[in-house]
């Protein structure tokens, strides 16, 4: 075997400056815009993301209003309607489903090949993943506010300032749940396996939390379930949002959500690292 020698052609030496903050911003903007465009192109996704919590609010909450009384517990200073109680939980539900939807979208992108476009970008992998995460969170926050807007007309109202103050809580909770979705997407080999995520992640996380019932009620019914709820990070995301609606910070929830956000993001970055990650294992038995 002989190696070919240089043909003698001169390749123009292209000056390539290292990426500065502006290039990073351009990249982030591009990922945000693409996620937004995809979302706009999938109107049914927007509608279904709204219908789900609205069904809970209009039907479930209305039906259970008389059955599930809520005593005065922080942050509420008076008795509240059950609809008011579950609204932060339904916001959490939107974030949870949206986070998992992003996970589904990443698996789909990986199967369709679109994910490769992102992963061969020269920007650091951690930056690309966090940008994608931010884009997903931005979309899910829009869904939450659309839901809150409709809920307002249903008579579920928080103090006006609460709608602004809850934004950071929604952002943090969205980051945590989105990062969890991203981590899970690295573990899912095929799109078909996503049903498992529904059964083993979304439903247990949602029901074993304070989204639908106060924890004291859960404790009365089942001390074991109460402990499970306390171990569930989604409980803390819901409580963080609930307190933020009334201009309060629930510090334990804040600390737990921050910690889990960090852990899930770190896990997702490692999982998508080609030299260390889980994603590489999904290729086994793949193309040649």
């Amino acid at each position: 075997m002989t190696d070919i020698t240089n043909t003698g052609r001169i390749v123009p030496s292209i000056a390539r400056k290292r990426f500065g903050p502006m290039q990073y911003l351009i990249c982030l903007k591009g990922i945000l815009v693409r996620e937004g465009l995809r979302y706009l192109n999938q109107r049914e996704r927007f509608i279904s993301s709204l219908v789900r919590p609205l069904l809970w609010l209009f039907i479930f909450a209305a039906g259970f209003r008389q059955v599930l009384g809520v005593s005065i517990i922080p942050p509420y200073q008076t008795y509240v309607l059950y609809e008011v109680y579950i609204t932060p939980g339904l916001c959490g539900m939107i974030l949870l489903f949206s986070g998992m939807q992003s996970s589904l979208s990443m698996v789909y992108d990986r199967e369709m090949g679109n994910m490769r476009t992102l992963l061969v970008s020269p920007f650091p992998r951690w930056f690309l993943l966090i940008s994608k995460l931010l884009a997903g969170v931005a979309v899910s926050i829009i869904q939450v506010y659309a839901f809150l807007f409709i809920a307002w007309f249903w008579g579920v109202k928080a103090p006006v300032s609460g709608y602004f103050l809850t934004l950071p809580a929604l952002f943090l909770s969205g980051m945590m749940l989105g990062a969890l979705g991203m981590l899970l997407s690295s573990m899912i080999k095929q799109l078909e396996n996503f049903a498992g995520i529904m059964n083993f992640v979304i439903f247990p996380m949602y029901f074993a939390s304070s989204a639908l019932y106060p924890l004291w009620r859960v404790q009365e019914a089942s001390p074991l379930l109460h402990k499970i709820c306390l171990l569930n990070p989604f409980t803390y995301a819901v409580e963080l949002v609930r307190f933020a609606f009334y201009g309060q910070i629930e510090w334990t929830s804040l600390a737990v959500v921050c910690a889990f956000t960090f852990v899930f993001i770190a896990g997702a970055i490692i999982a998508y690292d080609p030299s260390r990650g889980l994603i590489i294992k999904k290729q086994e038995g793949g193309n040649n």
Partner: protein
Amino acid sequence: MSPNAGLKDVQGKSLPEASIPALELASVSYAYGKRQALDDISFSIPPGRFAVLLGLNGAGKTTLFSLISHLFATRKGRIHVFGHEINRRPGDALRRLGIVFQARTLDLDLSVHQNLSYHASLHGIGTREANQRIDELLQSIDMSDRLHEKARSLSGGQIRRVEIIRALLHQPSLLLLDEATVGLDIKSRATILADIRKLVHDNGISVLWATHLIDEVNHADQVIVLDRGRLVANGSVNDVVKAAGGTTINEAFSRLTGIVALNPGHRP
């Protein structure tokens, strides 16, 4: 600061990009579990060269592309793109790479412009500059009128051509194309191949063109033949034909890979 700043000759002088191989693989191996997909692959491609990576399905071409593009980590061996080791400096290496994957990677729900703009942003190219480059590149393939059409409405050949100009948008020095003409009609195949060869000629871009179609090989090309994960030939068409003991590249490829000649009449 030039990203080549770290590349120096023995006297400590910075090396210009033109004097460094566009792509250099040294003893690269890769296994999926116990199945060896690539075994001790070494070759290099000089700047401005059109290299054809020939191999049957399952030869290891896509695995090799995944390693070069850093989708997979190189666990054994070294890969350098214009002197930048892909594992150590993936950003510097990837900036010089334009990649067209075997699978279609355009987002079918987005327009041609949105797809190309997204790619530009993934390379840190601002809107104004991106739009200018998009216009120029689309003009070069006579597709300016399809700018705002959804990718879904394009034919297979048009999608492929958009993917190629997308790979060129950030002005790479090395273009990787993995079975870029698979599934296309003869006319589209010929057009795409001619476009790429023109690029090499006009701009001095290096190309690694993976295919299993022998009629895509040209006399002036560097030919690299993979067979079941092993490099069985590397050189000019004449060198490969001579080394395999055949009379045509088609015959040489058949001998090297143990298949019956598909098109004995073809003599590149």
